[in-house]
């Protein structure tokens, strides 16, 4: 009986919530892993988006209503989450957060003509052959050219060595675009060595970088092999600048890792929580007050995604009554004309859904990520 009462009460509450929401608010769905192994990514996105929605609504113009659905980083559950949002009357989606679910949901959304803006799914497969899916984050290969650009702009070194994993599409893809861009910018790639998945001995790779007199070693790889390379470079008393991409993010949280090894390591990432601009300071302050921890790049990506959508909605003149199919085409047209300055840089979009923005980097100092100058 008690259970029944609770259920009825819950139903009533849900219904009142639905009624209350019908006051001309635009319905945006969020899909991402809120539980499971990738839960940190999903909750960061949900929290970052919630802050942005609150700010947009407080301005009094466009009103947004958010509906967050959990997909546990599972493509099938992600489709279920998408269907729930469809039934709810969702007009556009911020998501999904992770790549594989995003490919699955993207295919369905393409059929249904539902607009998607993913904060963090970075594979090119996410946007391939779909005009309705846009990204806030860099695509994987773009990180390569952006890294070369950053290294050249900040004159970090002209003699560059690369160590990459040629058994891995992510690493190889980034390396190829890096090499092309480096050549264009006049960076000299003095050594290029590879390894495969199970490698633990990097002495040959590090020795060849050292012998070639590299001033900077570019590591488009995940943080586990990177941690071994740092250790072996130290053993050989080789101390160039090590430069990584988003795969390097996480190196400081390896259990037992001696963080002094990573001192001075730079990595390309769109957001650094200790940035001094007003927007970042406000966001970090709000986020820390509400959720008790420092926001990651996922939270910043989601915050930018909501602001981007709000601008696109305004430009396209979408209202709460616009059906999702119509909104999709209107948003696609609007997105290509937008220029948004957010937490993660100033962004414009190509018709493919790919974002263009200026890269920023962080450097590891005293065991923490600090914005690079």
């Amino acid at each position, binding site marked *: 009986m008690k259970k029944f009462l609770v259920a009825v009460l819950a139903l009533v509450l849900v219904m009142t919530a639905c009624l209350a929401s019908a006051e001309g608010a635009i319905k945006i769905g969020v899909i991402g892993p809120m539980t499971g192994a990738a839960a940190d990514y999903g909750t960061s996105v949900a929290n970052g988006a919630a802050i942005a929605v609150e700010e947009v609504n407080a301005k009094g113009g466009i009103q947004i209503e958010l509906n967050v659905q959990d997909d546990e980083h599972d493509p099938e559950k992600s489709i279920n989450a998408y269907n729930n949002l469809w039934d709810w009357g969702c007009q556009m989606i911020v998501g999904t957060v992770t790549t594989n679910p995003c490919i699955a949901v993207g295919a369905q959304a393409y059929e249904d003509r539902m607009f998607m803006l993913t904060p963090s799914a970075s594979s090119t497969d996410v946007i391939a052959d779909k005009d309705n899916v846009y990204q806030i984050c860099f695509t994987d290969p773009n990180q390569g050219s952006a890294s070369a650009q950053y290294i050249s702009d900040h004159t970090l070194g002209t003699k560059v060595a690369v160590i990459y994993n*040629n058994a891995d599409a992510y690493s190889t893809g980034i390396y190829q675009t890096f090499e092309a861009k480096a050549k264009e910018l006049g960076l000299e790639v003095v050594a290029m*060595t*590879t*390894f*495969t998945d*199970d*490698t*633990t*001995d990097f*002495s*040959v*790779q590090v*020795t*060849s970088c050292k*012998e070639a007199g590299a001033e900077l070693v570019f590591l488009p790889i995940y943080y*586990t092999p990177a*941690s*071994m390379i740092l*250790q072996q470079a130290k*053993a*050989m*008393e080789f101390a160039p600048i090590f430069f990584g991409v988003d795969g390097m993010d996480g190196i400081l949280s*390896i*259990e*037992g*890792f*001696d963080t002094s090894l990573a001192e001075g390591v730079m990595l390309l990432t769109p957001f650094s929580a200790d940035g001094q601009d007003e927007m970042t300071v406000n966001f970090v302050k709000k986020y820390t007050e509400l959720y008790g921890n420092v926001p990651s790049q996922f939270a910043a990506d989601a915050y930018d995604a909501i602001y981007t959508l709000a601008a696109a909605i305004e430009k396209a003149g979408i209202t709460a009554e616009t059906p999702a199919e119509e909104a999709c085409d209107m948003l696609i047209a609007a997105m290509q004309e937008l220029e948004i300055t957010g937490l993660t840089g100033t962004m414009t979009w190509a018709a493919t859904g790919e974002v263009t923005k200026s890269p920023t980097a962080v450097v590891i100092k005293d065991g923490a990520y600090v914005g690079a100058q």
Partner: protein
Amino acid sequence: MTLFLSYLINGISLGSVYAIIALGYTMVYGIAKMLNFAHGDVIMIGAYVSFCATQYLGLPPLVSVIFAMAACTALGIVIEGLAYKPLRQAPSLAVLITAIGVSYFLQNTALLIWGANPKSFKSVVDFGALSLMNGQLLISSETIVTILANIVIMIALTTFTGKTKVGKAMRAVSEDKGAAELMGINVNATISMTFAIGSALAAIAGVLLCSAYPTLQPTTGSMPGIKAFTAAVFGGIGSIPGAMVGGILLGVIEILGKAYVSTELGDAFVFAVLIVVLLVKPSGLLGKTVREKV
């Protein structure tokens, strides 16, 4: 020239790690006449125990090694008793397959206990590197300690099997189990003893492996284990000095192959050596050719 020498030193560093693992392989094979494919995973468990002892209990590195040796000795006796003892009369293929099963069991147990995220192992030896030729060549402290440990273990094992009563019993068991039993030797206890010693060596190998290559995860032991097996075959399986020679040569071959041919083919060189040895000299560099009596 210095470049070649520095590759050579890298090769010896890597080879000394293979050698110390190969010693355990060869010891168990020499006495019990079985390939303990779970040896690499006992190494991994030993490294995890040492990691936990220093990281969570705050014990000094040397104590953690003794801790790991004790844990691995117990583990070795338990594995032998549960998995191999019931198969004493079974064909050797059955024992081999069981060993592979034990290997997977240990890997998955480690996955369950410590998770898949790699842990960074803090080196137990840290007294700086030995610098030669005005700092152009560096020999890490891990390498020096590993080579010293190899020599000490090699001498200790040879003396033990040659001079002590238990050691002589081991050799007797390895030559003829039936006859040894008739002479009043407890065959089961002797084989258990072999596993206990082999596993204690695995613990030392695990700590030294992870000191040199500090990433620790449930699959840490499997690849070095297989390469050390290759080293043991190369040197002559069953031969204690052969394991050390084979290990060091294999490390040098791997590194020189990577340096002068291709970094991606490092593993291929190691296993090409295995094929060549099996074709040309199946008994290995220092192994004895034993005629099978029919």
